[in-house]
């Protein structure tokens, strides 16, 4: 096992970087050779699109590597080696340990005048100590979707508080259809953030201290347990929350899912679905919320030609606005990361999509803060598991998470 760990680390993920093999150390025909890595997108046409963008770039020979499987771990391992990517995308930008470990390049100077056009919360999420480490490529979001006709039949209004959501889920549950689907783990994977925002608190405070040692958070997490035991939650569906199948196949009346599922939802139920944020805790506490995330383009410090890699990122994700709009709108359903482009996106101007964009602007929260490390994430996720599935005391669990998070914040500060 020990050998296995180190072997994987040393070997990275093989020597195939996706970069064109060329003489002269990373150049081809006088032009720099760059390897650009993406995770495997689900929408047809996406791979061809990024390959076309890469081909159109005149100042470097860019080769796209499309990576199915556990992309995040693959990138993290590859960055340790000399055979990693030059340019790569990463969910919500590079991690704090990548930044502190000097694995990614400062991209602050690439935005220029366009800085004010990018969604501020995304720029903030991808920055550390005033320096920007990734350029947001596209905005994604998670929200509640519901079947209008099923709610009408059951005489249920779209819920605006968690208690109303619980009552609605119960009322919508029949022999064949469950009221709500929040993932096969009962919401452990995706409701951690919404449960906090619902209670008016957050992962960390503005000054980067632990943010939810609070009775409202305790109450909000207790509601997740209540939902899990209510028998109105769909559990063990063949596909998980990120796929709309459970909703489109009629297994559930409401589902917490992502904006990317809209094309399938529209095809299955034209004009018969609506969207909602995760509701606030109760009439007097908290606020509704939607989860906002974005893949960001980053440059490895081990790139053969860092300047060439930076110029390519600037060309694609800052200058080429038409390509950015194409990327966000043509293949799937995403919100462009720039405000001016979001205003030009025709698909986002009406119906549930327009509501979703409104939620992003009004009640959107970045998925988690930059200083929320994987260790903090695991501690919170473990606590959620125990609270939701075993019914352990949320207050005790929150205290245990706080101890881990405080230690992590101290480590980062040190």
């Amino acid at each position: 096992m020990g050998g296995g760990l180190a072997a994987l680390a040393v070997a990275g993920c093989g020597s195939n970087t996706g970069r064109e093999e060329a003489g002269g150390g990373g150049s081809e025909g006088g032009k720099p050779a760059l390897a650009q890595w993406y995770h495997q997108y689900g929408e047809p046409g996406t791979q061809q699109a990024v390959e076309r963008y890469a081909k159109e770039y005149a100042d470097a020979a860019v080769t796209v590597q499309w990576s199915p499987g556990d992309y995040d771990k693959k990138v993290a391992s590859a960055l340790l080696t000399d055979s990693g990517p030059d340019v790569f995308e990463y969910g919500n930008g590079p991690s704090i340990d990548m930044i502190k470990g000097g694995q990614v390049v400062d991209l602050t100077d690439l935005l220029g005048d366009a800085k004010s056009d990018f969604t501020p919360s995304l720029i903030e999420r991808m920055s550390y100590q005033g320096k920007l480490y990734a350029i947001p490529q596209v905005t994604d979001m998670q929200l509640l979707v519901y079947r209008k006709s099923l709610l009408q039949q059951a005489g249920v209004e779209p819920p605006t508080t968690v208690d109303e959501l619980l009552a609605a889920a119960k009322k919508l549950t029949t022999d064949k259809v469950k009221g709500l689907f929040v993932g096969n783990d009962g919401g452990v994977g995706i409701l951690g953030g919404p449960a906090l925002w619902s209670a008016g608190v957050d992962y960390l405070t503005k000054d980067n201290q632990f943010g939810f040692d609070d009775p409202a958070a305790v109450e909000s997490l207790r509601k997740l347990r209540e939902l899990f035991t209510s028998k109105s939650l769909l559990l063990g569906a063949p596909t998980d929350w990120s796929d709309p199948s459970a909703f489109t196949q009629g297994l559930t009346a409401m589902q917490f899912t992502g904006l990317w599922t809209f094309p399938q939802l529209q095809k299955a139920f034209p004009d018969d679905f609506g969207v909602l944020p995760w509701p606030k805790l109760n009439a007097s506490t908290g606020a509704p919320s939607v989860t906002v995330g974005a893949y960001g383009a980053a440059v490895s410090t081990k790139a053969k030609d860092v300047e060439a890699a930076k110029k390519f990122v600037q060309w694609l994700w800052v200058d080429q606005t038409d390509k950015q709009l194409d990327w966000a709108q043509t293949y799937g359903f995403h919100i462009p990361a720039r405000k001016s482009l979001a205003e030009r996106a025709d698909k986002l101007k009406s119906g549930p999509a327009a509501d979703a964009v409104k939620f992003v602007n009004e009640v959107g929260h970045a998925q988690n803060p930059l200083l929320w490390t994987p260790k903090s994430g695991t501690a919170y996720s473990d606590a959620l598991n125990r609270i939701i599935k075993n019914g352990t005391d949320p207050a005790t669990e929150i205290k245990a998470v706080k101890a881990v998070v405080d230690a992590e914040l101290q480590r980062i500060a040190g």
Partner: protein
Amino acid sequence: MSAPATSRTRPTAEDRPPVSLTTRLRGRYDRNLWFAIFVGPFVLGLAVFVYVPIVWSVVLSFFDARNTVTPTDFVGLGNYLDMLRDSAFRSSLLTFVVFALFIVPTTFVVSLGLALLVHRARFARTFFRSVFFLPTACSYVVASLIWKLSIFNGVRFGLANTVLGWFGLEPVAWLSVTQPPWYWLVLVTARMWLQAGFYMILFLAGLQRISPSLYEAAAIDGATGWRVLRYVTLPQLRATSTAVLLLLLINAFQAFDEFYNLLSSSGQYPPYARPPLVYLYYAALGQGQDFGHGSAGAVILTLMIALIALAQGRFLGLGRRDD
């Protein structure tokens, strides 16, 4: 009488022509050379991909190695102490113990039972051997997905829930609930289906080594059925049983695939079913990339497996003469 002209005396070292170092290295008929040509690449591969990483991993365990495999901050035994104090790591060991308590005896009994049945089968013996052995060829990942998506999914049309439905029972979310912990049933049946055939073959080999004269003697003494099994078959299978138990325990320690594929979702993993390898995978190769703590955990785990295997071998008499 003089010695015959044809008689020869054994040549002494001085008589033989001098042998060059190259010739000696190549060996008689170039045996050494061919040995090196055939074995060398594999030894090199073993060294590069197994022994060097193992040594490197042990080195990393003494350093603060986050997002790097060439660390500079020596922390001594700090990573080891952290791991031993880490309640999540300790609970992963507990998960393993529970899993081993389920899987080792059940697989042992099932594979021995299958071997006895197949050994005594009067017809279609080869067919049954093949049927029971075939699952061994199936990937753990594929089997896990079949178990998760087809047999034990939580909706009413999953295979297991369909059967429950025939008896008027409610569908069960097998992998989502912990009260009761149905996920153990899914984990154990998946592994048992995959590995029982392999151990059945080991037991079959052991059964075929038992001399028929022992059974004849037992029959003359009037022993039948259970008494033959108790006093002839099982004692004769002692060496095989010991090896099977040891392999089962080590395999249980190495459990990863079915746990990971059955229980991970959306990048999350529940703490209650996280055996040591899954825990170390997340610690070292997850987004945290904490090779120092991951390596320390791996060394601790390796030592534990070695100690348990030694203790078990001593207790059960592995390597002792099978007399």
